[in-house]
């Protein structure tokens, strides 16, 4: 699975989120939500990915409502008021909040769906295959690995500190001391493991050669990459022109 056309779509969503009119943004949001259902390339591969997506969408919904209420109540300056469920909301505030909410949904849902539907390996391959510095590919892999490993390690160190009678629940100052006591061993052990793993990646030739085409499953979706990139470019150019004319 090649992530290039998907990345191009994410880029287009991001550019549209700040540069395109709201009607187009709504079309894009609807497309985004339809993609995991209809496009095999965007399908969420696991139950866990689906769960994450559902939770995140619920979170976005709540956030949008909070945005609407906060801006509706607090938008300074004159404006007509809308009465919704007995609450008087400032119309310009509600409009502003809707724009921001739409932008947030577009920005976040595109990235979220991209990462949930693309395996880490495809992303690493992509970084290397573009000839980007191999150090970046190794850095990304190492970071993701440490992120996955740290919560368990933090839990273990905290438990050990607590068993030794460290003030995990004492005063604020005492808890700061525990924080330092946790960070010390965490840094030493994580650095040691990261160095080892870096060696292992280098030994396996990560970044040493371009990946042969015969390994990557060619996808007809690649033909979407350039049109999407061109669309992004046109959107930016159109927006710049409009700004200069004004």
């Amino acid at each position, binding site marked *: 699975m090649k992530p290039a056309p998907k990345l191009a779509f994410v880029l287009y969503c991001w550019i549209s989120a700040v540069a395109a009119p709201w009607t187009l943004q709504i079309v894009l949001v609807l497309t985004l939500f339809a993609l995991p259902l209809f496009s095999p390339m965007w399908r969420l591969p696991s139950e866990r990915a689906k769960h994450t997506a559902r939770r995140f969408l619920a979170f976005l919904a709540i956030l949008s409502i909070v945005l609407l209420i906060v801006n509706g109540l607090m938008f300074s300056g004159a404006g007509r008021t809308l009465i919704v469920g007995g609450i008087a909301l400032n119309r310009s505030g509600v409009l502003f909040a809707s724009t921001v909410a739409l932008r947030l949904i577009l920005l976040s849902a595109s990235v979220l769906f991209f990462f949930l539907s693309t395996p880490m390996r495809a992303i690493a391959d992509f970084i290397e295959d573009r000839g980007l510095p191999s150090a970046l590919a190794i850095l990304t892999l190492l970071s993701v690995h440490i992120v996955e490993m740290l919560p368990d390690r933090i839990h273990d160190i905290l438990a050990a500190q607590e068993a030794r009678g460290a003030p995990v629940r004492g005063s604020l100052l005492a808890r700061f001391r525990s924080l330092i006591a946790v960070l010390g061993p965490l840094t030493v052990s994580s650095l040691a493991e990261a160095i080892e793993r870096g060696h292992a990646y*280098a030994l396996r030739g*990560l970044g040493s050669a371009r990946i042969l085409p015969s390994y990557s499953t060619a996808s007809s979706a690649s033909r979407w990459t350039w049109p999407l990139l061109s669309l992004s470019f046109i959107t930016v150019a159109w927006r710049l022109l409009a700004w200069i004319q004004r």
Partner: protein
Amino acid sequence: MAILGPSEAGKTTLLFAIAGLLGIHGTGASSSGSVAVLGHAFTPFPSHPEFPHVSMLLQDPAVQISGLTDTVQEEILLGLRHAGVARENAEHHLEESLRLLGIPHLRDRTLRSLSGGEIQKVALASAIATGPSVLLLDEPASALDPASAIALASLLRRLAHRSTIMFTDTTLDLAVRCADTVCVFDAGGVRFTGSPADLIRSGSLYCDMLPTEPWTTALRRLERAPAGDPLVRRLRRLAGMT
């Protein structure tokens, strides 16, 4: 070839220098010197691994599993792909490395379901799949039970037909079973170079320094026994010491 010596003697640093790992990720920043690998002299040390010509098995094989793949097959193909081996040929190398390690049955297993010993074998299979000219192993026997160590020795003897093999160890046991040459390291310097039998014969301090299991102890006793005794002669012949 076996690199023997107590811990902290600099054995791993030597392997890292040969593998081209000293220049990256900062192992042994204080080291100096030069290395010649496959006809290329490096002064100072090579700054990047001579992949795929030099492979190395790290002391903790679990670290070596990339975490990018799900199955044993994909894991071994990963290195082949980075070595630039075409997909059609890769299949052949994959099968051969699995066969050499005696693990064709693990091919479709997920990496998470493997035991510690199996992980070592998979890591070794990935290391040899690219057909390296030099294979380095850092204390491969340290976590093995005696039976697995014997199996490892015969595996290394088989692999020696394909690659130059260097491994480190803190005991003499694996070296006695499969090494042509031993090199004893201590305090950062070479103290002895020769065959395992020579080392035992020399009765040197470094031979006593290395802990041994009964088989090696027996060999050492045999070496020191009076040569006139016919039984000793016969035992020596059986042990391949003549």
